């Protein structure tokens, strides 16, 4: 397993959002604005990196029979730490993300990568896999939440100051002035339509380029 392979897997070929379809619950529920999507994506990335590294470090001393409970405990600790961190430093974002932040613990991406990858690979590989998979997840969340925010509210990066502080307010772009608002894109069905179209687009690109 080379690093380029891991990179390609995480960002495109095995993208958690578009191909593995793991973590659908946050993908569908939280992607109403770009800020929310990126916020959750970054939190997931942090947990993924930390859990991948830890599990890879202890992979030789964990008995096979009880590996899953141990993985879950490790992941739960990191999720709790992340939740507390967001609650302490980004309280407004914490209020927006709500239950989805602690629910990262049930996100199949993390236990999936722990079981399928980190528990069998060296620390370096596991770390790099955590980074690329997490960035792939952020990419999927970002695409979907950007599209939904654009069509739903006609803006991009609304409430960016929740995440990056008041200095980030310049990020908020009103793309369509006097936009009518398209509620469907914001409501849950919009997430399903949007994700379906993005998956179709990914497949179309693969077909065009000739990747099986």
């Amino acid at each position, binding site marked *: 397993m080379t690093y380029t392979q891991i990179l390609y897997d995480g960002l495109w070929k095995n993208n958690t959002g578009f191909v593995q379809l793991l973590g659908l619950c946050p993908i569908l529920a939280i992607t109403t604005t770009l800020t929310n999507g990126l916020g959750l994506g970054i939190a997931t990335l942090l947990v993924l990196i930390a859990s991948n590294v830890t599990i890879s470090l202890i992979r030789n001393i964990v008995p096979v029979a009880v590996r899953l409970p141990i993985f879950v405990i490790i992941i739960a600790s990191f999720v709790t730490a992340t939740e507390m961190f967001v609650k302490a430093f980004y309280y407004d974002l914490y209020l927006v993300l709500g239950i989805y932040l602690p629910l990262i613990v049930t996100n199949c991406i993390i236990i999936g990568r722990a079981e399928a990858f980190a528990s069998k690979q060296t620390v370096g590989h596991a770390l790099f896999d955590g980074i690329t998979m997490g960035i792939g997840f952020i990419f999927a969340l970002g695409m979907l939440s950007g599209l939904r925010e654009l069509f739903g509210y006609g803006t991009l990066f609304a409430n960016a100051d929740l995440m990056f502080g008041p200095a980030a307010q310049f990020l908020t772009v009103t793309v369509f002035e006097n936009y*009518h*608002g*398209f*509620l*469907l894109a914001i*409501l849950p069905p919009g997430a399903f*339509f949007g994700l379906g179209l993005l998956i179709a687009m990914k497949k179309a690109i693969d077909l065009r380029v000739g990747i099986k």
Partner: protein
Amino acid sequence: MPFKTSPSPFLYAPTDTSAIMRQVLYALVPGLVIYVYFFGWGVVINVLIASLTALSSEALVLWLRNRPLRPSLSDGSALVTAWLLAAALSPFVPWWMTMLGTAFAIIVVKQLYGGLGYNPFNPAIAGYAMLLISFPADMGKWPALTSQPGMLDSLSIIFNGHPLTVPTLDALSGATLLDTVKNSLKQSYTIQEIQQHPLFGYMGAKSVEVINGVFLLGGLWLLYKRVISWHIPVAVMGSLFLISTFFFVWDSGIYPSPLYHLVSGGVILGAFFIATDPVTAATSNQGRLIYGAGIGILVYIIRTWGGYPDGIAFAVLLMNITAPMIDYYTQPRVFGYPK
């Protein structure tokens, strides 16, 4: 001299898809004409916009899918979708909303699932529901029946958002009867008091009851032509009638009469033209009765206790999902096989 013989059946009716769709379109014409008479030219403009959008988006998807254009475009199914959607829309909706709803109906609801015959949901009603949940304010804006906008006013409303002769659209628009009744009931008026409202006609919404009567005639013609079977319309209207009679008898002060429920809103159009869509409805006769009864009951529930004034769109969509299951449990016994 050789005779050309073909296998049975020897008597048949030429009922291919395009013939059936044509008959549905014919049956819609009288209702639409009366609709124009009461609500002005906006209806005609909506029908035109919807038809053009339906045909062009169907052509676009067929072209993308490398399918032959002619058979699908000429079978009239896209036109039926467009006309039904236009018949359900207020004549005041802006042009892009009609286009968006029709394009969504054809591209997403019909063609993404594989085209005519494969769509689990009725395209017209799904397009309508999409517009209803996306743009509740515009979809609830109906003409006040006191004055109809003329041709130029209608064009201006649809394309510019305001009429030409009167200053604002609000001067021409008002709530529908279903809306009024719902709001007045919330303010604890009794039905008897609400019936004094000028929107009330003989049995239900003024003028709308006449439009629905003509749509009923069109539906009966479809029944006579055997394009549709009696089961679904009878089950929809029968179940709605029964459940509304029950509550009307229970307390006629807060539950309106069964006739009001039948002739106001979109029940007649839905029961004859939309719920009977052969692709999305249940197919066995027993199943059709269950399917139709489900629609009638859901309409009553949504109208009486739900958040929307009319529930026919959501009722049909909800029963569309259950149609495969209803079919599964109501398969008729094959002759010669045990039950």
